[in-house]
């Protein structure tokens, strides 16, 4: 029996050894807490690692210059561009056709994704605001970014949730959001409860030129944009305030238009193709891959092929075979095309026409014609045509000029290097001109600045100006900068018909609240009409 007892004891002990675990799960290969703010080394020009890195990364990650998010819904729904269905490619359940024709539904994927992306980014900003121990200047920057992201949501969807970190999920009316965004911006600008430029001396924001961070001028630029559209948002116009905010930037900011004196090497040049310029000059330089020091940019989102990915314009727009023009690492998608009517609004000699579009016969790196063996046309050579046969189902694979404003460099990776301006002086001039004209009810007041912008683009001055002409000028200048939808709405043109689009109903000026989010948050109510 003694042996038996020993054995039982032995087995029992083995059992106990493995027993009584506390079942605590400590993740090893995943990040479970936020540490963007723990003083990781600083460096880099105008950006790099500080407590605000997460805040500005969040803007980049909010669909600013890639396919399927903010840029796409803001642009494809306008008369600037479309994603045509090219036979078997790009039908995709009709999401881009309905975006173009303003028949989008609450289940539309990009409409849904854009909502979630903005709130995801706002959450990261809130995280910094509540946990990062920001100093006054950083706090002001973070709040401006948060207000800017709310402005995007309010502009897109109208009545939204103000995510100020309180955890509330209540929907606010568009004018309540307007007031909140305005209040946040005014507070960051040191102005108290009403717009008053004399308050700027109290602002924690700086005045130095910092491209990747917020200073007083970028905050004023956002405020000017908010005021310029105030009538759309609230029914009450704020044009004088918009003009004053923009005017302050023009008068006091350390910025100048990127004119013929500004030039950067053309990183996309093919040695075998003599028509490729050696340098990108003036307007084109603002958007070049090496645009980080352009004097016109007030606030831009930093993109980098290795460390700050998220800009994919080359993939989004170019034909598959155009890979061999620039030696891209990956094949483009043959999606976005510019609309003929829009392209034709440029005069032939307009520098911006050349900078903004990729047109005509396409050659590879060695200067030989690119071909598309699957194309419908009898000759397989690729020629981007200004006209497009149809939106769907068999849009020509080479139909439409392509989006070339953010110029491509040779051997570009899937992510581009060009920085994406959110506030730049050219835009500020046009906002100032428009606000001044609208405040006075006299479009002629906008002429000097419009002509300055035209002069920079090498087109002759206008002698008179109508609202329609102004809108066209603004369109030419701001192509591919995610501004067109907002501009069309402000000018009352959004619901008009254009190529392959009939008149749309008035309620289409705001997108529907995504149906997924209506399910997840029962306090949300859908916008009228949807």
């Amino acid at each position, binding site marked *: 029996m003694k042996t038996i007892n020993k054995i039982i004891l032995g087995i029992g002990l*083995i*059992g106990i050894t493995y*027993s009584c675990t506390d*079942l605590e*799960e*400590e*993740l*090893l*290969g*995943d*990040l*479970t807490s936020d540490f*963007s703010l723990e003083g*990781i*080394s600083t*460096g*880099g*020009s*105008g*950006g*790099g*690692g500080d407590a605000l*890195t997460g*805040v500005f*990364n*969040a803007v*980049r990650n909010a669909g600013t210059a890639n396919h399927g998010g903010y840029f796409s819904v803001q642009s494809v729904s306008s008369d600037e561009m479309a994603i045509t*269905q090219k*036979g*078997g*490619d*790009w*039908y995709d*359940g*009709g999401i881009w056709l309905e975006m173009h024709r303003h028949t*989008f*539904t609450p*289940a539309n*994927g990009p409409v849904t994704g854009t909502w979630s992306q903005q*709130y995801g980014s706002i*959450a990261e900003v809130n995280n910094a605001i509540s946990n990062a121990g920001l100093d006054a200047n950083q706090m002001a920057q973070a709040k401006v970014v948060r207000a800017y992201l709310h402005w995007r949501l309010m502009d897109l969807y109208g009545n939204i949730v103000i995510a100020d970190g309180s955890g509330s*999920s209540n929907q606010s009316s568009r004018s309540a959001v307007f007031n909140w965004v305005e209040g946040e911006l005014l507070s960051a600008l040191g102005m108290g409860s009403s717009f008053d430029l004399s308050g700027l001396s109290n602002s924690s924001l700086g005045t130095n030129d910092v491209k*990747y961070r917020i200073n007083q001028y970028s905050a004023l630029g956002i405020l000017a944009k908010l005021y310029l559209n105030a009538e759309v948002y609230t029914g009450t116009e704020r044009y004088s305030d918009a003009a004053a905010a923009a005017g302050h930037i023009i008068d006091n900011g350390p910025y100048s238009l990127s004119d013929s004196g500004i030039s950067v090497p053309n990183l996309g040049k093919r040695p075998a193709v003599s028509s490729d310029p050696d340098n990108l000059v003036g307007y084109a330089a603002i958007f070049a891959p090496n645009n980080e020091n352009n004097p016109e940019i007030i606030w831009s989102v930093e993109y*980098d092929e290795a*460390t*700050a990915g998220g800009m994919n314009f080359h993939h989004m727009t170019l034909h*598959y075979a155009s*890979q061999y023009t620039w*030696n891209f*690492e*990956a*094949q483009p998608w043959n999606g976005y095309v510019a609309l003929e009517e829009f392209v034709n609004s440029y005069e032939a000699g307009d520098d911006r026409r050349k900078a903004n579009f990729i047109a005509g016969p396409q050659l590879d790196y060695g200067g030989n014609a690119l071909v598309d*063996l699957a*194309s*419908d046309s009898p000759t*397989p050579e690729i020629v981007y045509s200004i006209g497009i046969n149809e939106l769907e189902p068999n849009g020509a*694979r080479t139909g439409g000029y392509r989006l070339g404003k953010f110029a491509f460099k040779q051997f570009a*990776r899937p992510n581009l290097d060009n920085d994406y301006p959110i506030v730049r002086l050219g835009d500020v001039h046009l906002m100032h001109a428009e606000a001044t004209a609208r405040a006075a009810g006299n479009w002629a007041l906008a002429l000097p600045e419009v002509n300055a912008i035209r002069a920079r683009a090498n087109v002759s001055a206008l002698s008179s100006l109508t609202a329609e002409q102004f809108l066209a000028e603004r369109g030419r200048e701001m192509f591919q900068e995610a501004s067109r939808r907002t501009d069309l709405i402000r000018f009352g043109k959004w619901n008009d018909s254009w190529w392959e689009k009939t008149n749309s109903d008035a309620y289409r000026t705001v997108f529907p609240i995504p*149906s*997924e989010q209506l399910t997840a948050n029962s306090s949300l109510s859908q916008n009228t009409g949807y």
Partner: protein
Amino acid sequence: MKLNLLKLSLAFTIAFSGMLSAQQVSGNVSDETGPLPGATVVVQGTTTGVVADFDGNYSISASAGDVLVFSYVGYTAQEITVGNQNTIDIVLQSSNELEEVLVTGYGSQQQKEITSAVTSISAEEFNQGAINDASQLLQGKVAGLQIYNRGGDPNAGTVIRLRGLSSLGANISPLVVIDGVVGASLNNVDPSDIESYTVLKDASAAAIYGSRGSSGVIIVTTKSGGVGAAQLTYSGQLSSSSILNQIDTMSPQEFIASGGRDLSSQTDWLDEVTRDAFTQIHNVSATGGNGKTNYRVSANLREAEGILLNSGFDQFNTRLNFSTTALDDRLKIDFNTSFTQRDQKNGFKESMRYATLYNPTAPVYAVDAPYAFNGAQFGGYYETLGLFDSYNPVSIIKQNLNNGERRELNYGINLTYDVSDNITAYFRSARQSSDYANRVYFRTTSLWNSSNDYGGADSPVRKGAAEFYENNSEFQLNELYGSWKKSTDDMNLVVTAGYSYQKENYNEAFFALGDFPGDEIDYIDAIEYSQDLLNAGNVIANSGRNPDTEIDAFFARVNLTWNNNFFLNASIRREGSTRLGADNRYGTFPAISMGADLAPILGLSGVQQLKPRISYGVTGNLPGQVGLSQEIRGWSWGGGGSAGGSTNLLRAANPDLKWEEKTELNFGIDLTMDRLSATLDIYEQTSKDFIINRVVDAAVYGFDRRFENAGQLSSNGFELSVNYDVTDNYNTGIVLSSNKVVLDEYVQDSDKFGNLGAPGQNSTWVTRVKVGEQVGQIWGPVWDGSVTNGSQNFKDVNGDGELVVGQNNALDDNVDFDVLGSGIPDLEIGWSNQITIGDYTINAFFRGAFGHSLVNTFRAFYEPRVGSQKSYNYVNTELANPEIKNANFSSLYVEEADFFKLDNLTISRQVNDNMNLSLNVQNAFVITDYTGSDPEPALFDLLDGNPLAPGIDRRNSYYSARSFTLGINYKF
């Protein structure tokens, strides 16, 4: 004086037994129909034992008073005490299958005592032929157990599902228990080493395994040691496979006639990338022992080729099962170990996909190009450059490498100690370690690479790429339990209770880089020359390690038999896991079942058993991933090449996350008559609180998804199996099953899944779930049969006069979509037949599934005569409509995929005592209207594993094969 007397008697005994020990006993072992070759005869309590020869004859030395034990698998053992006779002939009774012992969780029971849904399949019922995957032995054999391996990829995993879908997102494959080791890997068991399977189908049977029992349990018992001198057995198989069914595409002439771009050659691309594939299998095993110490060792070698060039594997597996006794036979020690080394060529399935859609007039080689073409950049192959998703299939499969290496090691020990006559203690400890490494190399002249997630290969812009992947999982199990038995005249009681602890760990690493200087060597062996090392951000690397997943469980069970006619079984398990939220780690899983054999009670003549039974149980389900309850963040660099960066939220936390729970009620009846046996089970299951990554309020959580317990599924079904001896030489058996899964609750009223994808059919979801309806609906517009301007016209399904067929309206009330089919079969059938004619045995196994449909994605993408796709071949099945020139998903591409096939036909001949020869055909013929390559159901989305998107035949499929196998089995 006492002592002397004892010595004296001892001496007398020895002398007496010595006197009789010379006795040789011989005789014949047979059953009612004839001799039983291989029956064992053992002198009880000694190491002496022999095996009967081909004629059933044996000869053994024994002494008077010895007890001889005659036994044979499937027969009731008989014990005969040796007197002074020299000849003992024995007729063994085929063991009444009621007394057949089934291995169940933590113990075993006789078939008659089982009161829940349990099925046992032994080796002679297994599927035959060149079977390389242990689970395929069972395919179609167990009612309610779905085993599908679509296509003929020898390296593809098999999908196993029991009684339909029991969960969403969590584990939906049954738990595998090998020789008592819970959660062991079937990859490390050679099919030829398996003795039997027991499948625990209902929650009552599986509840003893607690959290992992929700999807059922498959218990594997490997072959163990024999008795007597070493018995060496060899079995070998030689098999040849070829492509079974291909998708109809256009011939070069048809292609040109329908407007395709003529590139002046004629190429049968599928023929270029496939082959007749040979497989050889060699198994050697040796068994032996003396009744106390037994062993079985085996070595298994498999060399298999796939029908796609450069695919297949070489595998070597060994296994040792050893057992012995100690401490007066009260302690039994079992040791077993197995090791598998597998080198696999995974090939590239994409090669088959491109072979289907590549321009049939394109040449294979650059020298045959119809225009000046720089083939040197592409390894001498022709490529249609500048097109989306168009790559020379021969170049893909011949230039590039995709090789994997898997190593699996298991070892474990079981101790069984008889504490007293009615108390037994068990201790089990087992370890398992699996390593897998994969290397992919795209040659510097390859245009194609499988991924755009990193630079990859893309000649001539990026020359070549090398990918390295490895993972390792470790697993340990320790269990301690005991059982107590009590028997009286009219009652048998067994109580079992114990503790189980399990720990698992998993880690993996991946990195890839490319752009190598030239084509001189395979740069995967010299990655230091990668240009990516000079360019920040171009090397991709990631690694991860799971925290230890620990499971802690206590369990107890009672088995009660009353009057040999009434049976009651009850169990409970309390279990905790690290994978759940801090507040909800533990769950309790009870079960109860009972049954009564009415045959003796009612005095039915000719009926050996008529047992109705009822059972109820609760099982849990553990999420498949770790950290689901926690917040997870990602990392973004700050740009500008600076070291700064920040985290960003990827998943919001949920500390309340708790167990999924399944309850199941099963009613069954077992009938055994002379020639007929039948089992019927009817069940109803409810799975609630299933764990899904659901949409949450983005404004509140900062991210629009987190894991929550949300929703409920219920299912019901029936399973019938019937076995009938038509004549003494012909046995037939049929298994039938049907299952319906309904979504009771969900995060929203309906949802859509199964995106078709690029080109052109993103945001096109082809399946839908809706609360209150069956899971597995294929959902889309209904083609009315007419075509206008190249586009299909759709039906106004709801007849409201307005046609709403936009994909973004898919879930709207007014949408004109309809249920176009079900991804899940209504009825599955397995029909086995065994005919014996002299030395010949014919096994014919038919299998079928009915009521399911498949979305034929090859057709949906490539059958419309899309104008701008002129350099891609068109799929051209009998369903093709040349008028349709626009690719729109609709009912036209959803096909009923009912099939009935002669799955497995074997003719074998017992040549003599030692040798058996066989000829086997797998996939002999398939009767189906489906135009794709394989009509077997796709139980989940083959792209992302989503169980709510079944029924999609994706384009990345490996064509299925038919194979012929010659087999030999030889006993030395």
